[in-house]
């Protein structure tokens, strides 16, 4: 069975002072091959923890994750990850960064170089292949990160706010790029974001999480990602369903934030 199954995941962090934090409580989720899921939620709702568990960096205290039918027991090349920033290897050239996965797997240079060059063309870095990554702008660096992840040909791509540190214009271009890559490669993608627009535009499915304990609050199935593949994202935003959905989710998250603040103040 291909795809991703998150089964009753719970995560509890024990604090040094004896208390503990329930970061995730009974999160269950099924992703089919080729689905694009974006995860939204107020800060502290366990989005990143969920992603780290799926990636295999964290072992959950309850439940399990299955990818392609086997249980996740650690990081693996089948689950690629794109970080917000700072995860590139600045001692390598752009090309060496992108070819890192195949090189580590011991593949022959002739076998992967064509794909690496192709990917660099796709993300628009054909003129920067020999540059060092620190010579590139933030947007270009994130394109390198995307290409590096794709070069390893993972089944699932996990993105932890990959566009969070970019300026608005670059961000919009990168969103189109992500959609294009998603459609072309047919990868299963989980995208964590703080931006509601990004979640709506990129998420075929949108998951809204609630905090304390972190849990799934509501799930949407939206047409915008499919529309955005061929169209300008600004046109997608003019779709009659777009604004109401956006408003609904915004209010939802807003209320959660209010509730957290109220609870904190009551406790104080």
């Amino acid at each position, binding site marked *: 069975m291909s795809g991703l199954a998150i089964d009753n995941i719970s995560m509890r962090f024990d604090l040094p002072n004896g208390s503990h934090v329930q970061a995730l409580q009974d999160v269950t989720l099924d992703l089919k091959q080729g689905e694009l899921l974006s995860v939204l939620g107020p800060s502290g709702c366990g989005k990143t923890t969920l992603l780290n568990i799926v*990636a*295999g*960096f964290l072992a959950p205290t309850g439940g399990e994750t299955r990818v392609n039918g086997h249980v996740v027991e650690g990081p693996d090349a089948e689950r690629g*990850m794109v970080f917000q920033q700072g*995860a590139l*290897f600045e001692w390598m050239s752009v090309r060496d960064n992108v070819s890192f996965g195949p090189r580590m797997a011991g593949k022959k240079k002739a076998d992967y170089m064509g794909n690496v060059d192709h990917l660099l063309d796709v993300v628009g870095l054909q003129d920067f292949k020999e540059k060092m990554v620190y010579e590139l702008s933030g947007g270009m660096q994130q394109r390198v990160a995307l290409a590096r992840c794709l070069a390893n040909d993972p089944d699932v791509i996990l993105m932890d706010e990959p566009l969070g540190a970019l300026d608005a214009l670059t961000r919009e271009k990168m969103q189109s790029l992500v959609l294009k890559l998603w459609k072309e490669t047919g990868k299963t993608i989980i995208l964590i974001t703080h931006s509601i627009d990004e979640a709506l535009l990129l998420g075929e499915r949108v998951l809204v999480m609630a905090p304390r304990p972190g849990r799934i609050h509501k799930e949407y199935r939206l047409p915008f990602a499919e529309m955005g593949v061929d169209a300008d994202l600004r046109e997608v935003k003019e779709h009659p369903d777009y604004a109401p959905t956006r408003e609904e989710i915004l209010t939802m998250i807003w209320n959660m934030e209010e509730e957290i603040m109220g609870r904190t103040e009551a406790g104080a």
Partner: protein
Amino acid sequence: MVDTVNLMCTRQRLGEEQTTLQASPVPEGQVVGENYTPPEGCELASGWEVFSGQFGTLGSELWTETGNVLFAAVGAIPSFIGYVLIILICMFAWRAVKSFLTPKRDFTSLKTVTFGDESAVRSEFPASIISIVFIFLIWGSFTGSALVPSFLHLPAPFTGENKFTYTVEDAEGNRDDADVFVRVFEAGADPDEIEVAEGDGFAKNDTTDVTVYRSEIVTWDRNDGVNRRDDGARIVAINGEEFDFDASAENNGTPPSFELGWARVAITERGTINVSPDAGWQMQPLYLPAPEVVWNRFIEIAKYGYQNVYLTVHLGFSLFRVVVGFLLGAAVGIPLGYAMGLSNWFRGWFDPIVEFMRPVPPLALIPLVIIWFGIGEVGKIFLLFLAALWIMAIAARSGVSGVRITKVHAAYSLGASKWQILRHVIIPNSLPEIFTGARVAMGVCWGTVVAAELVAAEEGIGKMITTASKFQSTDIILLGVIIIGVVGFGIDMLMRMAERKLVPWKGKG
């Protein structure tokens, strides 16, 4: 093993009663608390007296020393202010010249934030040049250097010939005048004897030769018709200025002295004349030789060596020790740092050792190293090895722990194994830190080698300084100091170049 006790002793000193705390051995056969009797005026000190006695002494000494330091510091304030003023004057002068020569609008000064923006501050090259020139200017003017135009020299000491007149009065009240011819010459010069006419009367003319910066006693009655002891003769005037001072009388007051402009002439307690030619404002070569003297010394030593050892040998030995000690320290320290950064067990094992040894300056270990290894190369290289070891270990450790966890996670999710992550992520990521550590370690090693050679060595740049200090060859000491500074600077520049070449990604992650 002799027992020792602390005693409080009271004794009379300069008419004052003083109580002091002192440690004193217990005589053979006596036992404290049984048959021990403290010496006269002393008694066993109580615990409180031992405590307060020590800290009382320490406190009063520190108080005095604090006073001395403050006094010296306050004395330096005018020079300091003067120096700052000169810096500012040079700055405004340079800016004025620059804007006169290249009148253009400098838009960078219109940036909203230039003050306090650390990245906007660059070292201004002309300032460095002027600063160095100024140091040589001061050096030259204080030493009367030929490199500095003479109007910039501070007043030089008096050299050459001059004379003054003294008036003698014998016991009967007869007076006569005579001259003293003074010749002041440079140290090391060997002037010919001079003959002067004796002159008439019972007082005869005298001559005296004085080396510059020194003074000379003139026994004026050596050749006169009367003398101090037998005839009760004494001097009553210098250059016609009369005074009343009789060296042979009791309670005769303070002996007079006269400023003649070119020299200070004083009557001594014994009735002779002390001639101190004017020393000027310049520094004696013994304290500070002129730049060209040091330069000539450098040429001489570079050609023929010092004390039968060539300069290249001195320098070569010092550099050899530094390089070998540093390389050994790095060869052990870097793997040690990696082990400490990667394994809890190694971290726990070596943390106490590293944290204990790190604050111990290698110089404090010199006596131990000499006892253990003798004064040969092994001991000195061991010392430098230790100096570099801890610095390199700590740099490598913090390089490893400083790796961003996202980089490791990224490498894992790209399918890298632990060894591949060590090889391709952790090691390259730690290189900038290791280079920083290497620069620090090289600096410390260079400083340590010189100090170690000061203590014990056959050759080496530090040894050259020690030898020179025994012969009071200040020019060679100064030369050694300059060579040490220049070589140390050169080493750091080389390390920086290597750093730019080898870890260009430093600080850009």
